[in-house]
């Protein structure tokens, strides 16, 4: 634990070190420098100038430090749902686990994401950045919850960036889009099911290869932990090849990709004494994604087609050897969007996912696990089986952008059904319900 505590202090020290370098440079009176520390906020509007205050220092002509900025996000929302099995809301989510309790304000609002950190650019080609997950609830005795990411990137050209450290492992298009900019409240069920988390590793990526091609190859330790994952519990390997076809299609932007991910320790779960990390590594050995993302004027469409090969075997889960019997899963997610007025965007999300049928335990074989309802918030409907073999969902919402994705209101309603669950006494084998969400998202 001592080492865990030392990391946020190290991040703070890095920030201060950056500030010292800035001060040394500002003494030299670089006229092109901007930022809060040099008293020069830039931008054409009040919003621009206000947000430019998060840039502490920026000067492209400084040979050592070109930029040092704060970064962060706060996403708070209200949710209320109803299903065949009854009413559910954020209170049910809060009471489900200690980890959930750490994100809920009162009983009705969840701080879905609260992060604070820094980003910096050194020697023209080096980027050092990091963020912590913050506890913003009333009773919090400390802000730090975990290191969300902390990485060093060497980026001499667009064609080659090398990143070392803890980063979000972005499998599928939905996960590639930052939560600052995602259009519905949540990623799709299938995307979340296969998402391996924020892991520590090495990644190489680039774009503009022969004008149109992009690539990414990364190897990460597969354990999802509060600080940095190691390689002793297995690895996640992710490879991608993409093609930018905007110029051939006359679309404003158009990117298609094929992605493959292999997990050598599916289902592994670290022991976490603070109950913060309740997630295990996805119980899939291999996953494949076909993605497409296009925009044209007011219109946009994000498409993910995902397949996961389920793992059957034993896995170390918080120190226990558990038997897993995960079925294969397949799903499609479509996110169409359209700006109906300046700053007002209509957003849809259509999901369809299937898996093999649920099988009860038989002899030494455990019951199969297949699709699981989303933890926000369908999973907490009363007396519902959280798993099934067929999931369909439709979301429609309105996003209002006060200052682009940096300050926006979101409202939406999601209707979903899950069928094929394994019934037990007093519980139904299906879910049929809707969730209303309303939230504010702020980032810098």
């Amino acid at each position, binding site marked *: 634990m001592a080492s865990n505590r030392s990391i946020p202090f190290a991040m703070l020290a890095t920030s201060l070190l950056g500030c010292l370098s800035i001060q040394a440079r500002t003494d030299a009176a670089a006229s*092109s420098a901007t930022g809060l520390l040099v008293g020069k906020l830039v931008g054409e*509007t009040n919003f*621009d100038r206000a947000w430019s205050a998060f840039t502490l220092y920026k000067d492209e002509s400084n040979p050592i430090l070109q930029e040092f900025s704060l970064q962060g996000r706060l996403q708070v929302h209200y949710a209320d749902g109803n299903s065949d099995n009854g009413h559910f809301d954020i209170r049910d989510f809060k009471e489900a686990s200690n980890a959930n309790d750490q994100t809920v304000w009162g009983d009705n609002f969840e701080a879905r994401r609260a992060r604070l950190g820094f980003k910096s650019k050194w020697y*023209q080609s080096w980027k050092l950045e990091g963020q912590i997950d913050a506890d913003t609830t009333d009773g919090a005795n400390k802000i730090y919850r975990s290191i969300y990411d902390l990485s060093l990137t060497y980026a*001499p*050209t667009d064609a080659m960036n090398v990143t070392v450290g803890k980063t979000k492992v972005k499998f599928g298009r939905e996960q590639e889009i930052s939560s600052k900019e995602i259009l519905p409240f949540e990623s799709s069920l299938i995307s979340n099911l296969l998402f391996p988390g924020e892991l520590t590793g090495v990644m190489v990526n680039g774009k503009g290869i022969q004008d149109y091609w992009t690539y990414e190859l990364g190897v990460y330790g597969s354990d999802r932990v509060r600080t940095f994952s190691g390689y002793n519990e297995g690895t996640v390997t992710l490879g991608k090849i993409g093609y930018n076809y905007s110029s051939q299609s006359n679309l*404003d932007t158009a990117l298609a990709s094929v992605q493959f991910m292999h997990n050598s320790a599916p289902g592994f779960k670290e022991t976490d004494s603070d109950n913060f990390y309740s997630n295990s590594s996805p119980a899939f050995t291999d996953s494949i994604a076909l993605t497409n993302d296009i925009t044209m004027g007011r219109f946009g469409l994000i498409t993910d087609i995902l397949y996961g090969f389920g793992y059957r075997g034993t896995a170390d889960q918080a120190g226990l050897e558990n038997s897993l019997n995960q079925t294969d899963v397949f799903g499609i997610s479509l996110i169409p969007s359209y700006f109906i*007025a*300046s700053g007002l*965007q209509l957003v849809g999300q259509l999901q369809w996912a299937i898996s093999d049928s649920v099988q009860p335990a038989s002899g030494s074989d455990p019951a199969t696990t297949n699709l699981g309802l989303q933890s926000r918030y369908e999973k907490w409907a009363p007396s519902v089986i959280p798993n099934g073999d067929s999931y369909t969902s439709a979301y429609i919402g309105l996003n209002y952008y006060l200052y682009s994705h940096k300050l926006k209101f979101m409202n939406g309603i999601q209707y979903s059904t899950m069928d094929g669950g394994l019934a037990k006494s007093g519980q139904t084998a299906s879910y049929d319900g809707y969730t209303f969400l309303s939230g504010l998202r702020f980032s810098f």
Partner: protein
Amino acid sequence: MKTISILLTATMISMAGAQTLSIKGSDTLGAKLVPQLAEAFKATGNAGVKFEIAAEGSTTAFPALANGTAQIGMSSREVKDDERTFCRTKGVYIKEHPICYDMLCVIVNKNSPLAKLTKDQVAKIFTGQVKDWSEIGGAPGKISIYTRNTSSGTYKDWQKLAMGGRDYPSSSLKMAGNEQIAQEVAKNKNGIGYVGLAYAKTAGTKTVLIDGVEPVAANAKKYTYARLCYFYAPDKPSAEAEAFMKYVESDAGQDIVRKVGFIPAKDL
């Protein structure tokens, strides 16, 4: 037919009274090319159009378009996804208009025996890793590097295009513009510098082939230090912006592009 169309649009603008056309962004385009295009446009019956040109870097083009303080954005690179998104969320759906290629040529003194360099050698020379011509097969002599000064966009562009983002050596000599670089290289047998295509034939200098490719207009697409430059405008531009962009794309406009030393996008 195209000329008639431009004249008609111009006449309509003139009838509407004086209008201001605000153009912001790249200093590569805004320093010389766009002001000359603006003057020529005004001379074709558009005297009533008042131009406001702010050349403070490509990065400034997109916030200005999003905020409505520019009707046309100038950029020496493609718009980034986050910049396009910022515009979209503010109700501005930008369209891309390729205008010209900007080509940076490596020049040496005309008496240098050097005729060609690789991209790797250029990077090593301009970062100070190679200090003497003899290290790359030339006649012995300490290399003198001439660059643009730090306030120039081209100074940074060259760092990214040719130097892998690394820094220039402290011994490099900072010049005010292309002309000064060419003049100094012409006077110094050990000199090397980079200039725009229009200055590539300055007396006393010669260009070198990069990875076997000659820096001439016809090679703009495959020459490693060439880049496409753009106008960006809303999908429904103002009448003045639309007329000006049509003029730039016309034969008369493209002649000016060529004269200033750029390569018209339509030529390739």
